[in-house]
C-alpha cells in the first residue's frame, strides 16, 4: 500500500532522515517508534505531501507522491501532532469544511458524517466551538478530520500525546478498530503503546532505521532466559556443582559475594532449554533457596534505548 524507498530529507547539512526504506502492507498497522527528534514527523510529513523529500521515492497505492500529489492525498487521512483545527468553528462546521475540502460528494458525506462522529464520540459536542473543547475532544475531532472520506491510509502522529489514561485506552481501541479496514501508520515514543496496537514496528533514530520487526519478535528478548544472574544462599562450591550438572547449562561463573554463604552467579544456558525449573527444584531439595533471578537479556525498553542511544554516543 505504501512504498518508501531510500527516502532522505536534508536541512542544510543535517540529515533529518537518511536513506529510509520500508513498505506498509494493506490493512497493516505500522508503528513508528523513536525518541523525540528522530525523524518520525518528518517522514510522515513527506508521505502526506506536506513537505517534500530531498531524494527518494514515496508511493501510495502505486502512485508516486511527486508525480501526482493530489491523487495520493486523496488516499490519505492525516492527523498531525497538533490537530489542525479552526478554533472559531463548531465541530459540525469544521467537519463539513473538511469534507468540502476533500471533495466528498455531499450525499456520501451525510451518511458518513454520522458514523464518524459516533465512532470518535463527538456527536454530543457537535454544536460547540472547537476552542471551547478539552484537549481530548480536540484530539478526537482531529481524528474525525483524518477519517473524512474514509481514506485507505491513515497517518497518525503521536495520537495519544497529552491525553488521560482512559482517553489513551479509547484512542488505542479506536486505532485497532480502524486497522481492520484501513492501513495505519502511527508514530509514538511510548513503547508499550506501539507493542499493544501495531502489527509491525519500525524503530527509527537520528533519521535512520534501527530495527523493523513485529512487536512479538522484539519482545522475545523479554522472555528469553538464556542468560541470567541468580543469587543463591548456600556454600559456593556446592551450588556450583548442582547448577553445572543441570542439562542445558553451558557456562557458570560466580559474579559476586553478597554476604557469607550468599553468592550471585552468572548462568548461560542453551537457548531452547529453560534451566530455571530444574535449578529451582534441585537447589530447594538441598535447602539452598534462590533469592533473586534476573534476565541479563535486554528488555524491550532496553533494546529500544540501546538502539536509539548508541549512535548518539558516537555523534557526541
Amino acid at each position, binding site marked *: 500500500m505504501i512504498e518508501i524507498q531510500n527516502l532522505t530529507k536534508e536541512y542544510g547539512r543535517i540529515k533529518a532522515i537518511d536513506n529510509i526504506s520500508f513498505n506498509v502492507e494493506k490493512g497493516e498497522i505500522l508503528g513508528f517508534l523513536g525518541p523525540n527528534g528522530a525523524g518520525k514527523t518528518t517522514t510522515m510529513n513527506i508521505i*502526506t505531501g*506536506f513537505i517534500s523529500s530531498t531524494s527518494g521515492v514515496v508511493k501510495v497505492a502505486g502512485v508516486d507522491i511527486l508525480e501526482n500529489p493530489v491523487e495520493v492525498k486523496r488516499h490519505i487521512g492525516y492527523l498531525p501532532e497538533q490537530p489542525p483545527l479552526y478554533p472559531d*468553528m463548531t465541530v459540525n462546521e469544521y467537519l463539513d469544511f473538511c469534507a*468540502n*475540502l476533500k471533495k466528498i460528494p455531499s450525499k456520501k458525506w451525510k451518511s458518513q458524517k454520522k458514523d464518524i462522529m459516533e465512532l470518535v464520540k463527538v456527536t454530543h459536542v457537535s454544536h460547540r466551538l472547537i476552542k471551547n473543547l478539552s484537549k481530548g475532544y480536540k484530539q478526537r475531532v482531529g481524528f474525525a478530520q483524518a477519517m473524512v472520506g474514509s481514506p485507505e491510509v491513515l497517518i497518525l502522529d503521536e495520537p495519544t500525546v497529552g491525553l488521560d489514561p482512559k482517553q489513551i485506552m479509547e484512542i488505542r481501541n479506536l486505532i485497532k478498530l480502524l486497522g481492520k479496514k484501513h492501513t495505519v501508520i502511527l508514530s509514538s515514543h511510548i513503547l508499550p503503546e506501539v507493542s499493544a496496537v501495531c502489527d509491525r514496528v519500525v524503530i527509527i533514530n537520528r533519521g535512520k532505521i534501527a530495527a523493523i520487526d513485529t512487536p512479538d519478535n522484539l519482545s522475545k528478548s523479554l522472555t528469553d532466559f538464556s542468560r541470567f544472574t541468580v543469587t543463591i544462599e548456600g556454600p559456593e562450591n556446592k551450588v556450583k556443582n548442582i547448577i553445572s550438572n543441570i542439562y542445558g547449562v553451558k557456562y557458570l561463573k560466580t559474579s559476586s559475594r553478597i554476604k557469607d554463604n550468599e553468592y550471585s552467579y552468572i548462568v548461560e544456558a542453551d537457548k531452547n532449554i529453560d534451566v530455571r525449573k530444574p535449578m529451582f527444584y534441585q537447589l530447594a531439595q538441598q535447602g539452598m533457596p534462590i533469592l533473586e533471578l534476573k534476565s541479563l537479556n535486554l528488555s524491550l525498553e532496553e533494546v529500544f534505548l540501546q538502539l536509539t542511544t548508541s549512535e548518539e554516543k558516537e555523534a557526541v
Partner: protein
Amino acid sequence: MRAIIKRDFKAYFNSPIAYVLIGLYMLLLGMFFNSFLGLGISDFMSEFVASMGSTLIIIVPILTMRTLAEDKKNGTEVLLLTSPVRVTEIVLGKFFACYCVFLVMTAVTLIFPLIVIIEGKPDIILIVCSYLGYVLIGAVYISLGVFASSLTENQIIASIITLVSIFLIQNIGYLAGFFSGFLNKVFLWISILDRYLDFIRGIVDLTSIVFMFSYTAVFIILTIRVIERKRWSQG
C-alpha cells in the same frame, strides 16, 4: 477552492473583524463625505472614490493579515496542504475570500453615491468608472496583503509589511521625478496610482485594466511560489 472561500468568508463574519473593519471604514468615509459636502462642489463623487482608494492603505492590511498567517499559527496549514487540492486553489481561495469581504464593504459604501444621485445630478458614468478603478486597485492591494501574509506566521508583521508595501507601490510614481530616461519610464510604468487616477478621471483603458489584473496575478503567483518553496526548502 470553493470550500476555502466559503470558510474564510464566514470566518470574517463570525468574528468581530469584519464588523469592526466595516465600521471603521464607514466612519472614515463618512468624515470624508462630510468634508466634501462642505466644499460646495457639485460633482465630487469621483474625488470621493479616490479618497476611498487611499483609505485602503489602512483597511487592506487588517483585512488580509490573517489569511495565511493564521493557518500557519493554528497548524491548519497542514490540513490544507495535505488535502487533495492544489496550492493554487488554496491561495486563490484565500484571495477570493478576502476579496468578497472587500466587495461587501464596497457595496456598503454605495450609499454615498446613492445620496448624491438622489439629491443632485452627478455624472453617473464617471462614478461607475471610479468604482471600477477602485475595485481593481482593491484586488491589487489584497493580493499584496495575501502575499505578505504568506511570508510570516505573525499577523502584526504581515499587516505592517502590507501597509509599507502599499505605501511603496502607491508612491513609486514620485520616484520617477528623480530619474530621467529609462528609469523614469520604468517607474512611471509600474506606478499604480497614475493608472488609478485615470479611472477616477473617467478614462477606462483596456491596458489599465490588464495592468491591474497583471499586478494582482504577480502577487498571487509569488504567494504560490512562497508556499511551494517552503515545502522544498532545505533549511
